C-alpha cells in the first residue's frame, strides 16, 4: 500500500507539474521562435529587393526558410514527445488513484460490517433479557440417518409382458 502512496505523491508533486511547466515554456518559446523567423525572413526579403545580386539574396531567403523548417520539425517532435509523457503520467496517476480508492472502499465496508454486527449483537442481547431460555432440544436438527441403507445389488429380471393384463380392462366379471 505504501508504494502506491509514494508513487501518487511523487506523480502529483513532481512529474506532472514538471510536464505542464515544460509545455508552458514550450508555448512561449514557440511564439518567440516564430516571431524571430518571420522577422528574419522579412529582413532578408527586403534586403533581397534592394540588394543588387539576386542569386545571393535568393540563396539567403532560402536558407532562412530552411532554418524555419528545421525549427518547425523540431518543435513538432518536442511538443509531441512532451504531450506523450504528460499523458502517460496523468493516466498513471488516475490508475493509482483508482487502486487507492478500491482498497479504501474495502476498509470502509469492513468497518460497516463490524458496526452492523455489533448493533445486531446489542439488539439480540436486549431481546435476550426479556426472553426466558426455552429448553430447545440440544439435538441437531439435521442429523445423519443412523444406519446406512445398504445398497442393493442390481439383479436382472426378464420383463414379463403379461403382468399388466388384468389392469383396467372393460368388462371383468369372473375373478372379481
Amino acid at each position, binding site marked *: 500500500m505504501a508504494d502506491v502512496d509514494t508513487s501518487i505523491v511523487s506523480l502529483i508533486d513532481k512529474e506532472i507539474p514538471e510536464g505542464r511547466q515544460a509545455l508552458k515554456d514550450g508555448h512561449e518559446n514557440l511564439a518567440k521562435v516564430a516571431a524571430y523567423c518571420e522577422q528574419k525572413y522579412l529582413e532578408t526579403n527586403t534586403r533581397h529587393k534592394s540588394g543588387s545580386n539576386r542569386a545571393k539574396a535568393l540563396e539567403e531567403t532560402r536558407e532562412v526558410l530552411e532554418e524555419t523548417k*528545421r525549427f518547425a*520539425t*523540431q518543435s*513538432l*517532435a*518536442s511538443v*509531441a*514527445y512532451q*504531450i*506523450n509523457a504528460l*499523458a*502517460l503520467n496523468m*493516466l498513471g496517476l488516475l490508475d493509482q488513484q483508482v487502486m487507492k480508492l478500491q482498497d479504501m472502499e474495502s476498509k470502509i465496508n469492513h468497518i460497516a460490517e463490524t458496526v452492523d454486527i455489533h*448493533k*445486531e449483537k*446489542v*439488539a*439480540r442481547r*436486549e*431481546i*435476550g*433479557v*426479556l*426472553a426466558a*431460555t*426455552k429448553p*430447545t432440544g440440544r439435538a*441437531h*436438527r*439435521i442429523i445423519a440417518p443412523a444406519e446406512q441403507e445398504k445398497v442393493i445389488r442390481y439383479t436382472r429380471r426378464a420383463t414379463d409382458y403379461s403382468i399388466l393384463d388384468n389392469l383396467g380392462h372393460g368388462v371383468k366379471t369372473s375373478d372379481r
Partner: protein
Amino acid sequence: MEASLNDAVCNVRQLETINLPDEQPQIEAPPASVTYISNFDTNFEDSKAFITCVSKYLEEADVHKGLNEMLEEGEKYAVMLYTWRSCSRAVPSVKSDDQPNRIEIYEKTVEVLEPEVSKLKSFMHFALSAVDRFCQEVKTLSHPERRKDFISERYLVTLGKFINMFAVLDALKNMKACLNNDYAFFKRADTFLRRGTGDVSMIEESQNLSLFLANQNKITLLLKEGLEHVQGYEDVLADVLNMFVRLFESNMYITPNEKHVLLKVMGFIIFLMDSKDSDVVKMDQKKRINISKIDKIFKQFPVVPLFGDVQIALVTYLKMCPHFEGMREKWSSSSDAAEDKTVVQYNLLGKMDSIREEHMITASNNTRNTEHYKELTNLALRGLRLLSSWTAQVMELYSWKLLHPTDKYANPQCPEKAEEYERATRYNYNSEEKFALVEVIAMIKGLYGLMSRLEPSFSEAIRRSIHDEVQNFIQINLREPLRKAVKSKKAALLKTILLSIRETGGDWTDAQHGRQDPIMKGEKDPNCSNEQCVICSVVQLYMVRTMLESLVSEKGGKKVMRKELEKETVEGIETFLKHSFFFEKLLRFNEVLRDCCDLSQLWFREFYLELTMGSRIQFPIEMSMPWILTSHILEKKNPSMMEYVLYPLDLYNDSAHYAMTVFKKQYLYDEIEAEVNLCFDQFVYKLSEQIFSYYKAQACSLLLDKKFKSELVRMNAEAAAKLGTRSNRYETLLKQRHVQLLGRSINLNKLISQRLNNAMIRSLDCAIGRFESGDICGVVDLENLLEVNRMTHKLLSKCAKLVPFKNMLGEANHSVSAPYGRITLHVFWELNFDFLPNYCYNSSTNRFVPTSYSLVDKLQNSVFNSISSLYSNFVGDVHFACVARLLGYQGIAVIIEELLKVIKSVLQGQLQQYIAELIEGMPKKCGVLEYYHASLEPIMQYSYLRTDVFQGFREIGNTILFCLQLENFLVNDKISVTSATVSINGAIFNCL
C-alpha cells in the same frame, strides 16, 4: 539533437498507441474542446509568383483579390446591421426645451452615440464605393470588345456574390428601423450642441446619411441607377444569371448557404434587369434567359433564408419589377396558390437511414491505392452533399414557418393574444413536425460526428486523389493536344496556353522539366507524376481552370480554340472542369463540413426582436426553438426520441459558437448562456423526475404478480395503463459523464444520481408518513411500499450509483443515530392507544378485530391501496410478520419492554383496588350456577366494572396475546435464521 521530419511524425504517431477507453455511448454532437482548422487559401496573394500563367488571367486574379476583400468587408457590415440593438431607446430623451440638464443629456447622448454613428457613416461609404466598383466591373465586362471574349466562371461567381451582398445589406437596412431612430436621435442632440457651427461638408454628409438610412431599398435603387448608365449591362447580368441557373440545376454547390445565395441572386438579377428600357420578357424571347426554368426553381423553393432569422420570399423580387404586371402570367410561382409549401416531406427519412449506415460501413480501411482514394473522396463529397441537403431542408422549413405564423384558427392551442414570434415558433409546429425536426437534427449531428471522426483519412484521400487527377490530366491528357499544337505551326496561341497550363499546374519530378520535355520535339513518351500528398495551391487551381475554360469556351471572338482541339479532348477538359469545381471546397474539407451542418441560425431572432419595437429585450425560453424541441421530447416521453434529447441542446452550442466567432457580440453570447442556464436546470429536473417515476412504475409492475395485474386490467383500464408502462431508454442518458454544453463539461450522471437519491429518500419518507397517518394495519401496506422502493433502488443502481438502500431507509426512518425509528415509535403508539384498548381477539381465526368501527378513505387510487384494503380492519399473523420484519430485534425488544411497563401500570394502578374489593364481594365457596348468578348480579351492575376493570383485563389480554403472536413468529423466523447459520459454520449455537 536535430529531429528530422520523420522523427517528428513518428513521435506523433506514437501518441496514437496510448489507449484511451471511454465507454460513454455517443449520443451528443462530437465534443471538440480543441479544434484545429488549417486554411492555406492565400486569396490570390501569391498569384504574381506564377508568371508562367497567361498574363490576362493574372490581372484578373488581382481583380478577384480586391473583390474578395470587399465581400469580406460586406459580410462584416451585414453582421453589424443584423446584430444592431437600438441605443436611442435606452438613452433618456430631453422632454422640454428648458429642461436644466438638457445640455448635459445631449452631450452624453452624443458621446454615447458617436462611435455607433461613425459605424453607420463608414457603412454608407462602403455601400456607395461597393456599388461604384460593381458598376465599373460590369462596365469593363460589357465593353463591346470584351463581350467577344469569354468571362471566367470564377469572375461570374464573384459578381453573383456581390449582387447577393447588395440584396442582403439592403434587406437588413430595411428591417432595422432602429438605425434611423438612433441616427435621428444623435442628429438632434448633435445639431443642438453645434448650433450650426459645423462645416458645410459635415452637414452635407449627415444629410446624405439620414437620406441613406431613411428610405427603403436605397442601395438597390443606387445600384439600379448605376447599372442603367452602363450600356448593355443586362447582357453581363444575363451571363451571371445563366451561370447561376446552370450551377443550381446541376447542383454544383455544397453548403446550404451557397445554394441559398444562388437562389437569391437569381431573383435579384431579374429585378435588376427589368428596368425602363430593357424588359425581362423580351430577354426571354431573345433566348438570352429562360424564364420557365427559373420559374420552376422558384416554385420549388418559394422561401429562402436571407440572413439569420430574416428570410425572403423570392417572389417579392419579381413583384418589385416594374414590368411585373406585363409578365404575371409567365410567373406561375408568384400566384398565391403556390404559397402552400408542402410540409417538408420527411418520407425520405427512410432513405437517409440507409445512407447513414453506409457511412458507418466504409470505416477507413487503410489500403492505400489510388482507386480507394477516389472512392473515399467521392464518399466525402456525397457525405457533404447529404449533410447540406438535410440542413438546407431544416433551414428552409424554419424560414417558411417564420414567414407563415399560425393564428388561433389554424392552431386551436394558439391563444388569442399570442405574440408574433410565439405564433411563428411555439404554436407553429405540430408534434410530428417537431419529432421529424429532432430526428433530422440528430441525423445531421450524428453524421457530422462520424465524418469528423473520419476526417483525417478523408482529407488525406482527398489530397491524394485530387493530386493524381490534376497531374494525370495535365501530364497525360494534355500531351496529345500539345503534341499536335507543337506540330501544327498555326495554333500558336493554343500552344502557349497549353504550355503555361503545364508549367503552372504541373508537379514534375526533377528530370521532367516542362521545357526539356521531349514533347517539345513532338514525340510521345511515358508520363511520370511524382507521388505526393499535397495538391496545387488555390491560385494554381484557379489559373489552370481558367485557362482550360478559355480553351473550351465557344465565345472567343475570331480565335476560338475550341475548333482546333479534337472532340474528345474538349470533352475531357469539360469533365475535368466539372470535377474540379469542387476541388477548392474539398481542400478546406474541415471548414466546409462545419458549414454544411450549421444550424446556429435557429436561435437568433433579431428580426422579431426588432418587430416588438423594444417591448421585448429577449424572448422567454418557451419561444426559442432549441427548447421547444427539447421539452417536446421530455413531455412526450417517446422512447425512440429519448436518446436524441441531447441534440437539440447542442443547437445552443452552435449558436453560442456563431455568436462568439462570427457575430463577435458578447451580449448575444450572454443571452444564450442565460437561456442555457435556465433550460438546463429544467432539463435535468424533468429528466430525473421522469426517470424516477419510470423506474418506480417498472418496480411496481415487477412486484405485482401476473394474475393480480390481469385481474386489475379487467377491473379498470386506468390503473392498468399506469401499470403497463412503455419501456423507455434512459440507460444511455444515464451513462453520459461528460456532456459538452457551451464549452463546459457536465457530468449528467452525477446530477441525476443526486436528484434520484433525494427522490428515493422522499418517497421512503412519504411511505413512512402514510403509515404514521394510518393505524397499525397499515404496516402491511408500508412493507409493500418499502419493497417497491427497494426494487426501484435495485433497478436504478444498475445505471446510477446511489446511496445503499439500507442507509436510505435508516435516514428516512430517523433510525440512524436515534435508537428507535419512526416506524417503531408509531407501532408502539398505535399499540398503546388503539390496538390494545379497542381490538378484541378472535381465537378461531387467530386475529384481532377492532370493536369500534373506523372508516379510513383511501384517497389515492393507486394499485397498492387495493391490496392494502384487503389487510385493513384486522390484525392477523401477516401483520405480526411485517411488524417483526420491520422492527427487527431492537424494535421488538423495546416494545415488549414498554408493554410490560404498561401492564404493570394498568395492574398496579387501576385494577388492584377493584380486584381487591371484588374478591371480598365474591362468595367464598362456590356452588350451583344460579346461586352464583344471584350473588354476582350486584357486582355486574357496578358501572365502573365495565369501563375500567374489563377494559383493563382486555388490555392485558391483548398485550399478552400480542407478545405471544410476536414470539411465535420470531421463533420460526429465528429458527430459519439460526439453522441457516448453523448449517453454514456450525459454531454458533442457539443463544436464545
